[in-house]
Every structure is written in structure tokens, then in C-alpha cells.
């Protein structure tokens, strides 16, 4: 079984996010970037499938600037066999929206013919949570999102999904798209020997022209704002004072 794992280069989850002065987005220059944590979980799951003998090949794909090669080499060190960079832009600030990403991935799927696409449920930069679903739609494949457990047998995947009321178990026929939730697995530390070995694994580059996908955006970012600062609390002297403030200042009691 062949697996395709899309990986996105995002601002590292440890970085304190700063909004650009002009409100056009968040600061990405001179900021530590790393693989989207949900994609890391997707890749870890793929590697475990390969180790169990369920999968035979893992292809990682990233769409973005040349810098995304770093993310792909991390993917190779984590256990992907091959990597594909879709060189989509030279502007690190350009955001490629989910539908465009899904269209590009659909082209890659048509070329690579994987049996399963495992993707992170969302990227931690824009939190769109849409690419996996759109890709399944474009391909006409089944989809199972927010997976917390995946079992492959006899041409289908049994996927446990975390939903509000508890756990939902789905069975999808392969080929399919599965997106991963936080509790699916805990990615391993990249080992030093695998970092060295990753250097020798193939990393192929494609351009948008190769794939014939148009990136014209359909969404417009109106403004990006920092979360409001919490104002300081206050001490009240008595219950009466508290009730008075709730009634007359906060207006939550009448």
C-alpha cells in the first residue's frame, strides 16, 4: 500500500505569534518554522503502518516556497521514502488557500496513485480544517476526519473519530483521505542516523506549470488582529460591593 502525506511548513508552535503592524497577517520573517504538528502525527502514523508491514511506501509532499524543502527533509528523516516539493510561490507571505492546495494535491494523487492520503486535520497557522475534506471531494474518495485510531484491513480503513458526544467509528473503502487528530499518536524523536540517511533520499521538485493549477485566491483577508489583552481584575471588599458592581457596572444582574 502506498501512502501520501502532505506536510506544511508553519510558524513553530512554541513561537509567540506577532501580528504585522499593517494587520495583513502574522510575522513570519526571522521566526522559527517547523512542520505542522498535525502533519507530523499523520506522518508518524504512516511510518507506523510501514513498520507494521501495512504500507510499503510513504511519499511526503509540501506546497510552498523553496524553504519547504527543510520541512520535507524533516519528513524524510521521520521516515518518508520520497519527497515532492511543489514550488508554488517565491513569496513566503503568500497564503495558498485550501481549495488550491486540494487541487494541487489531487494532481499529485493522479500521478502517484496512492491508496491512502493521511493529512493533518488542519494547519496551526490558519486553522482552516478544509484541505483534507476538499481533496476527498475533488477525488470522489471517502473521507474520515479527526482520526484518533486507524486500522487497515482488506481494502478498507476503520477509523475512530473524536466527536463531541464520544467516539464515532467509521469504515471507509480505500482509496480514501484520512485526517489526523491530536491523540492519534505521539510522534517519535527524529534519530540522528535517520537525519543522515534522509540526505540520500530523493526530493523531487515540481512547478505549478507542471501541474496546471491556478492559485488565484477566492478568499480575502480583511484584517488580522491580536487577541484583546485581558484587563486587570479587582478586589472587592464585601459581598454587597460585588453585587453592586455586577448590577451597576457589569450589568449581568438586574
Amino acid at each position: 500500500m502506498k501512502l501520501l502525506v502532505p506536510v506544511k511548513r508553519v510558524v513553530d508552535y512554541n513561537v509567540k505569534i506577532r501580528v504585522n503592524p499593517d494587520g495583513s497577517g502574522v510575522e513570519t520573517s526571522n521566526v522559527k518554522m517547523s512542520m505542522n504538528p498535525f502533519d507530523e502525527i499523520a506522518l508518524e502514523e504512516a511510518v507506523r503502518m510501514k513498520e507494521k508491514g501495512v504500507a510499503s511506501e510513504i511519499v511526503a509532499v509540501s506546497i510552498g516556497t523553496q524553504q519547504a524543502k527543510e520541512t520535507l527533509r524533516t519528513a524524510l528523516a521521520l521516515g518518508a521514502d520520497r519527497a515532492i516539493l511543489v514550488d508554488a510561490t517565491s513569496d513566503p507571505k503568500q497564503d495558498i488557500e485550501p481549495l488550491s492546495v486540494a487541487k494541487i494535491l489531487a494532481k499529485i494523487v493522479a500521478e502517484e496513485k496512492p491508496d491512502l492520503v493521511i493529512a493533518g486535520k488542519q494547519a496551526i497557522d490558519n486553522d482552516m480544517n478544509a484541505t483534507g475534506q476538499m481533496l476527498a471531494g475533488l477525488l470522489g474518495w471517502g473521507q474520515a476526519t479527526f482520526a484518533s485510531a486507524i486500522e487497515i484491513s482488506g481494502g478498507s480503513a476503520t477509523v475512530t473519530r473524536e466527536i463531541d458526544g464520544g467516539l464515532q467509528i467509521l469504515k471507509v473503502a480505500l482509496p480514501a483521505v484520512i485526517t489526523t487528530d491530536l491523540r492519534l499518536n505521539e510522534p517519535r524523536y527524529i534519530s540522528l542516523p535517520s537525519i543522515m540517511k534522509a540526505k540520500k533520499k530523493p526530493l523531487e521538485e515540481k512547478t505549478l506549470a507542471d501541474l496546471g493549477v491556478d492559485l488565484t485566491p477566492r478568499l480575502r483577508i480583511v484584517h488580522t488582529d491580536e487577541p484583546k489583552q485581558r484587563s486587570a481584575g479587582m478586589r472587592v471588599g464585601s459581598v454587597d460591593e460585588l453585587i453592586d458592581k455586577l448590577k451597576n457596572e457589569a450589568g449581568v444582574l438586574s
Partner: protein
Amino acid sequence: MYLNEMQAQVRETAQAFADEVIRPAAEALDREERFPSEIYDEMAKVGLFGVGVPESLGGPGFDTLTYAVVMEELSRGYASIADQCGLVELISTLLVRHGTERQTGMLPEILAMKRKVAYCITEPEAGTDVSGIRTTAEKDGDGWVLNGGKIWIHNAPVADTGFVLARTDKAAGNRGMSIFIVDLHAQGVERGPKEHKMGQRASQVGGLSFSDVRLGPDALLGEAGRGFHMMMSVLDKGRVGIAALATGIAQAGLEAAVEYAGVRKQFDKKISEFQGVQWLLADMAKDIEAARLLVHSAAVKIDQGLDATKACSMAKCFAGDMAVARTSDAVQVFGGSGYIRGFEVERLYRDAKITQIYEGTNQIQRMIIARELMKKGARA
């Protein structure tokens, strides 16, 4: 940053491992003075032992700069654990350079921590001056018979295999010493009690005595009579490793001090707003960075095959002295709390002291630096 992409990746892995696995365990390991096998097993899985061992012999095959980066990060977690990594690195380097095919065959076990090693040089009468060793190996048939004793040997209470420096020719001075690979479970080997140390307490240190220990023909590492020179040939790398370890201890102290200064309030102000505290933090940060650059420059010299003796001694000496001075500053930032057991900086200060002593005292490092200056001039 001047680290290449792979070196940066290695640092990220070592950093995450130190933050998530090592640092949270350090306080208990220090208190219990315990050998952390479970952490070493995990480290072995991540390939953090034998950083420089070539791929053909089961390692990742990284350069000395990468090794220094790993040592600093691990030590930032806990120096005892970095020191285990340093020990494995030295033994592996000796084996890679001088071992027969059969001897290098033990490398995968050593890197997996399934075979624990000890580097047995020091004796009561031979510390800094190694030529004073009295342990002897006498030729006997096709093998040798080992007699004598070693003290302050890292891993002695737990090790499976010792790399033992012994005299094979009494008249030949530095050319009369050899290194033997000794099974420490063999008859005639006795282990002394574990020493209770000021710091780096998870490192198990003790004595070993050898009485009529029979060694086979395979036990000799490299050539007979070349033991001293083989030992000296890995000293540069050893010093870079300890210098990086010292830098990591100080870096942990800086991180703790910056965090504490940002939350501790006196006179209704964070203590980080007082200039006295700011100067302590600034001095710590600049000296740590200076030590790190000395370490990296010495490592790069080794990697480029340049004469690295002076650079390695400068790095080791500066980083060791810096670690003691700057962890003392970290204690100072914490005030009374910093003197209390259980606060990280109290341990860091104790852990730092030995970096001025082991792998060649800092007085010896100064002698080497001066000797190099006299020999090669001030510009070399």
C-alpha cells in the same frame, strides 16, 4: 546561524529530548544518585550515542561540531547524562580509529547501551600525570595478565567493559603503555564502592582493582606501547565535549535565572527591572555565548584537520571557569531559594565545578595554551 541544516536538525532533536525527557528527571536523579538506564535506552533509540561513529560501523557519522551541539543540549538537560554521551563518544572514537574488525564489532552494543563502558586511566599516583600509572599488563603466552588498580572511574560500578591503560614496558616511559579491552565481569576484577560526589551525581564513579586478570590476544587495542598516544589523540575531542557540557550547564542556569527574574517581585517590581540583576543576566548571557563560540571554533578546527590543541584547551578552560562563575550568578539571581536543594540552580552550581577538574584541570589547560604560545608564537 552557521549550523548547516542537518546540524540544526540534530540540535532540534537533542533540544527536544533534553527538554522533555532529561531536564524533568534531573532533580530526582541527583537526589537518588541513580544510573538512569531508562533514559539511556531512550537516547540509544534516538541515536544520541556515538555521534561521530561512521554509518558503516552503526553510527550516524556526524562531525565534531555536531557532537559539540549534542553535548551542550544534553547537558542543558542534565550534565551527568551528557557525560555518559561523552564517555561513549571517546571510547567509540578510540575503537573506530584503532580497533580491529572484531573489536569494532562491539560498537552497535555500546551505542545501544547494552554494553556499558568505562575509560580507566586515573590511579592514586597518576592523575594529571598519566606517566605515573602502576597498573601493569605482563605478556603471558599469547595474552597478558593484568594487575593494579584504578580510581574515580566513570561507570566503574555498572560497566561491562573497561578500556584500561596499563604499563606493558616499565623502561619505556610514555612509549611503554598500552590500552586493553577488559571484561569487567571476569575473574580477578573487583569494584570498589560508589563515590558520593559534590555534583553530577547520576554519574556512577568508583574504583576498580585487577588481580591476575587474564587477557586474551584480542584484548590489546591498537599497537602495544602506543596506549599513551592513542589516549592523547582523543583528548582534543574530549575537551571540546567537556567544554560544550560546561556551556550547557551554564545555559540551563541562564534559562532558569531569566525566567525567575521575570516573575519574582520585590519592592512591587519584578527583580528583572533592577539593574543589579540585569547586569548579572547580561554577563551570564555574553560569557555563555563566548564559550559556545570557542567550543564551536575548536570543533570546526578538528573537523578541518587543523591543529586544534590550543583551541580545545582554550574552550575547555574558558567554558569550565565560566560555568562555575555563571552558575554562581544564577544562584545569586535566585537569592535564598537558589541555595535550597530542589532548585535547579543549586544543582547546576554543584554540577559545574567538576568541569574545571576533569578532562585535564584548567591549570593544565593554561599550561598547554602557554606552551603552544611559546612554541608557535602568539599569532598561530
